[in-house]
């Protein structure tokens, strides 16, 4: 065959056709622009969001490492350090506890010594920021801002003197209180919410604590590959010859958790990609459908299928060349300029320079994806163009017309609307699918954003807004500072929902093997075994009042009972509890699973500080809970604490000693209420407090970023859903120009046409909303579950979802009508004659 030089003429026709269809090209370019923009911005913001949330998680942990070896020996450290899969190791040793600053009693503030690696490579990355330097001299100290605030130092200064009372954790020190004036050499902010400080090597040396001391020393291990299995840990254990009490703290679910997260992310990304693909595909499909008669004409005058296909591809490339760079530029602008600016406006102290990681790969991926999507989307329409016969093309109407008679006698506006929605089944499926995916992505993203909301995380982890603790609770000269007067003062504050009171007293529980025998055995077999089982039990039988064996007699009010009961699945009989017929036992260690046969048994006890110190009482134990359900914080000896009702405690004790109160506000995180509540205890030195709001305030910077990024992603995806629909509707209405003119010519008023379009819009919105919920909610749950780092309960952010659905519904009703008004204003005859050209 002879080669025919026709490339030029085909290009020329393509150019002429392209130039003639400005409105349609605009829609195509817009679709490509939007898809490119969406992919780029979602990737850029998504990566940044992920980084910020991960960073916050590390900050909440306070240190960045993979696994931990307790009480490491030097030889073990060397061995681990030299292992292939280990990146680096750092040593941290808890060596002292501060009890008091000046006259102010503190929550136990733990002092650690960290080696250089642990400080520089494992601690600094987990800090939001720090001032000063790590302690070098013996009297230097670095504290968390959280601790400094608790000390009453909101604005610390380097070099300030801090006179404190502390005790060392050296095994033989017997917690003897010592006084020392430290010099503040630095402070830091993390989100761990724990009272902690760092000291120098010299101070650590003087305390006499060793890194191998039980529960004090730890080797923090950072692995080269943070995805490890149980097998890896066992291999490590086998190599380092571990002592009996030593253990490696590792999360063996790392790989499965990572896989879950990856699957969640892949599903999300896939949905976004499919959404982008359908968007481009649909616009191109509509555009070619509209042109098919024109292509038919070209075929009749001798253009071949190959030439026609080439024309379609050529036009697609021109659209891509215009749309992709625009989309990338817009994404870059939003990611690098708009969002950082927004962050700075919201939080002026914020250094917003590198918030959004607008990496080149993000843009390359987005650009390539949009180009290939555009290319693949062309295949079908190009095939359509190539395959149809000239006559078929000339007769083409964009509908899947029935082949058989259809005995139907409808014909009103409503039935027309319904028919129109599914006139072209393929297109209807594409519109509904892409709309459904867009709404589903929004649902999923919204659930993730909701899941990572710091307020929600804190609400799930704190049962109160503010807790006041009496630090003298365990002292010999304990003082009743949380008086009934003060409690009622707090209760009367506007904005306070309730105050839960927890009282406690020492309780002597004589040795009762039939009740706790199994429990003690388990406790003494555990890593945290308090000593020699036989010796201790012998001593216990002889001296049950020894502080080592006594425990706490805790009482809770009605609210407190509700919370306790809820934590164990509401299995307690409220009346029996109130009447003092049953109590709840609290296991000494939180990881002790099982109830050791305790429930149902009756325990005998006496109360040295009660009305009748010599009297022995008995009560049935209804449940054995772990320490997480314990409303009290001060611990007794190894015997399980007893939780009883306030009424019963009062009966046995007379006046109760209030250990702590939990205050709950009407509106969580209310600053106004918090200020008033705090004022009740004013400068009271022996009262420490723990505030959810203060913890939240510490997380503010990260929270601002998380929120801005998260909401931006949500907003952009919502925009996609809406714009996607808009574009499809615009193309759809223009495609039906001739039909509208026909309808008008036989008597359909503009009002009726608009009504029909509105009905179609509502139809699409309702169907896609229903499918979105059916599809989106299970996916949301799966993604939520995969990414649930804080074990919070699943909930759907209905507010924002309903707003999106409301906006969608309104737009679905308004947009087609608006497009109709804007495009169908030529005379009927002109529109009839123009047929399906715009």
């Amino acid at each position, binding site marked *: 065959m002879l080669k025919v030089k026709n490339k030029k003429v085909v290009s020329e026709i393509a150019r002429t056709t392209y130039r003639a269809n400005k409105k349609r090209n605009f829609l195509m370019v817009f679709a490509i622009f939007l898809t490119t923009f969406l992919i780029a911005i979602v990737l850029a913001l998504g990566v940044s969001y992920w980084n910020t949330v991960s960073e916050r998680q590390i900050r909440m942990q306070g240190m960045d490492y993979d696994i931990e070896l307790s009480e490491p020996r030097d030889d073990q450290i060397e061995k681990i350090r030299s292992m292939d899969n280990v990146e680096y190791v750092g040593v941290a040793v808890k060596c002292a506890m501060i009890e008091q600053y000046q006259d102010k009693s503190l929550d136990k503030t733990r002092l650690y010594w960290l080696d250089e690696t642990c400080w520089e490579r494992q601690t600094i990355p987990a800090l939001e920021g720090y001032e000063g330097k790590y302690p070098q001299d013996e009297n230097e100290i670095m504290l968390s801002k959280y601790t400094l605030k608790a000390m009453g130092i909101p604005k610390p200064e380097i070099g300030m003197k801090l006179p404190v009372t502390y005790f060392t954790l050296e095994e033989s020190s017997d917690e003897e209180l010592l006084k020392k004036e430290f010099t503040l050499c630095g402070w830091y902010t993390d989100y761990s919410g724990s009272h902690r400080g760092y000291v120098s090597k010299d101070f650590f040396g003087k305390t006499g604590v060793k890194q191998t001391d039980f529960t004090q020393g730890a080797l923090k291990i950072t692995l080269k590959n943070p995805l490890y299995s149980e097998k890896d840990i066992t291999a490590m254990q086998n190599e380092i010859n571990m002592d009996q009490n030593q253990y490696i703290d590792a999360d063996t679910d790392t790989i499965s958790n990572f896989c879950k997260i990856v699957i969640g992310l892949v599903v999300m990304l896939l949905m976004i990609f499919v959404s982008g693909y359908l968007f481009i595909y649909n616009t191109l499909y509509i555009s070619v459908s509209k042109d098919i008669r024109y292509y038919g004409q070209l075929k009749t005058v001798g253009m071949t299928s190959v030439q026609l296909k080439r024309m379609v591809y050529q036009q697609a490339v021109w659209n891509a060349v215009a749309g992709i760079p625009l989309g990338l530029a817009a994404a870059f602008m939003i990611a690098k300029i708009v969002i950082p600016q927004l962050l700075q406006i919201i939080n002026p102290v914020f250094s917003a320079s590198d918030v959004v990681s607008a990496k080149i790969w993000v843009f390359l991926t987005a650009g390539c994806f949009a180009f290939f999507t555009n290319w693949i989307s062309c295949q079908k329409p190009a095939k359509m163009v190539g395959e149809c016969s000239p006559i078929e093309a000339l007769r083409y*109407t964009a*509908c899947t*017309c*029935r*082949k058989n*008679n*259809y*005995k*139907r*006698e*409808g*014909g*009103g*506006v409503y039935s*027309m609307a319904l*028919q*129109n929605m599914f*006139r072209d089944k393929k297109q209807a499926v594409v519109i509904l699918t892409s709309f459904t995916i867009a709404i589903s992505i929004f649902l999923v993203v919204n659930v993730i954003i909701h899941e990572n909301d710091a307020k929600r995380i804190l609400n799930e982890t704190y049962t109160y807004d503010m807790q006041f603790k009496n630090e003298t609770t365990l002292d010999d000269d304990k003082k009743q500072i949380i008086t009934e007067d003060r409690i009622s003062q707090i209760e009367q504050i506007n904005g306070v929902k309730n105050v839960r009171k927890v009282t406690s007293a020492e309780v002597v529980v004589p040795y009762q093997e039939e009740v706790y025998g199994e429990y003690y055995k388990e406790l003494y077999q555990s890593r945290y075994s308090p000593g020699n089982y036989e010796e201790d039990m012998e001593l216990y039988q002889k001296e049950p009042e020894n502080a080592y064996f006594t425990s706490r007699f805790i009482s809770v009010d009605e609210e407190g009972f509700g919370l306790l009961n809820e934590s164990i699945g509401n299995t307690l009989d409220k009346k029996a509890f109130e009447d003092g017929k049953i109590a709840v036992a609290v296991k000494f260690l939180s990881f002790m699973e099982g109830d050791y046969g305790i429930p149902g048994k009756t325990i005998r006890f006496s109360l040295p500080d009660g009305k009748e110190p010599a009297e022995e009482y008995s009560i049935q134990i209804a449940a054995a809970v772990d320490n997480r359900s314990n409303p009290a914080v001060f611990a007794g000896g190894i015997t399980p604490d007893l939780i009883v009702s306030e009424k019963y405690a009062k009966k046995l004790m007379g006046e109760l000693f209030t250990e702590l109160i939990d205050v709950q506000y009407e509106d969580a995180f209310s600053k106004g209420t918090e200020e008033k509540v705090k004022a009740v205890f004013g400068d009271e030195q022996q009262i420490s407090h723990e505030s959810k709001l203060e913890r939240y305030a510490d997380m503010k910077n990260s929270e601002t970023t998380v929120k801005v990024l998260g909401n931006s992603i949500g907003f952009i995806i919502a925009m996609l859903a809406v714009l996607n629909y808009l574009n499809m509707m615009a193309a759809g209405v223009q495609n039906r120009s001739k*039909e509208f003119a*026909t*309808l*008008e*010519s*036989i*008597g*359909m*008023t*503009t*009002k*009726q046409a608009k009504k029909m379009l509105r009905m179609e819009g509502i139809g699409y919105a309702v169907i896609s909303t229903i499918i979105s919920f059916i599809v989106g909610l299970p996916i949301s749950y799966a993604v939520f579950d995969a990414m649930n780092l804080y074990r919070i309960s699943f909930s759907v952010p209905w507010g924002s979802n309903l707003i999106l659905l409301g906006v969608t519904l309104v737009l679905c009703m308004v947009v087609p009508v608006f497009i109709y008004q804007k495009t169908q204003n030529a*005379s*009927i*005859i*002109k529109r*009839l004659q123009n047929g399906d050209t715009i």
Partner: protein
Amino acid sequence: MNILTTENLKKHYDMGEIQVKALDGINLFVREGEFLAIVGTSGSGKSTLLHMLGGLDIPTSGRVVVDGKDISKMAKDELTIFRRRKIGFVFQNYNLLPLMNVYENIVLPIKLDGLKPDQDYVEQIITLLGLKEKKYAMPGQLSGGQQQRVALARALATKPAIILADEPTGNLDSRTSQDVLGLMKTTGQRFGQTIVMITHNDEIAQMAERIIRLEDGKICGGGDRYAESEE
């Protein structure tokens, strides 16, 4: 009595620097129940005139009065409703709605008027036009002649005062053309309707009671027959 009149009707198009006078001062008078054919060569303005008569296009100047009402002064929706009730259109290319079956296409204008179709009447038209067997067929399943008969049935369904037919036989063979025209005439007489038909085919035009010839946007014969009697 004249059911349709035009007064100095003009339609001019600006095409660059040239002004095209599609209609140039048309005065037309059509009596009630009359079957009128408008003939002329291609580009003579006959289609434009028909569109003006039916309110499908807007005149540059002049008046179109249908059943005593000046339609050129009507608002868009008012005109649509007026057209729905008073005028039936038959287009050369049928303009049937592809998604609706024959019956639905026919009754659509009645339903758009919020009325229930007069079943007897609709059945009568369907029978008369020989569409009984095709009542539930989709337009795509019909031949050209059948489609044109459906278009005619649709135009008749609302019992309009006037039927405007734009080359109704333009896409049909001569036998089918005769059939459709015969039916149009019969139904027109039976339901007392005025028919205005445009065609370029003289033979077809002969079936009308009166013929108007249009050239360069002007009537050159037959247009003012009833002008004086009206005055």
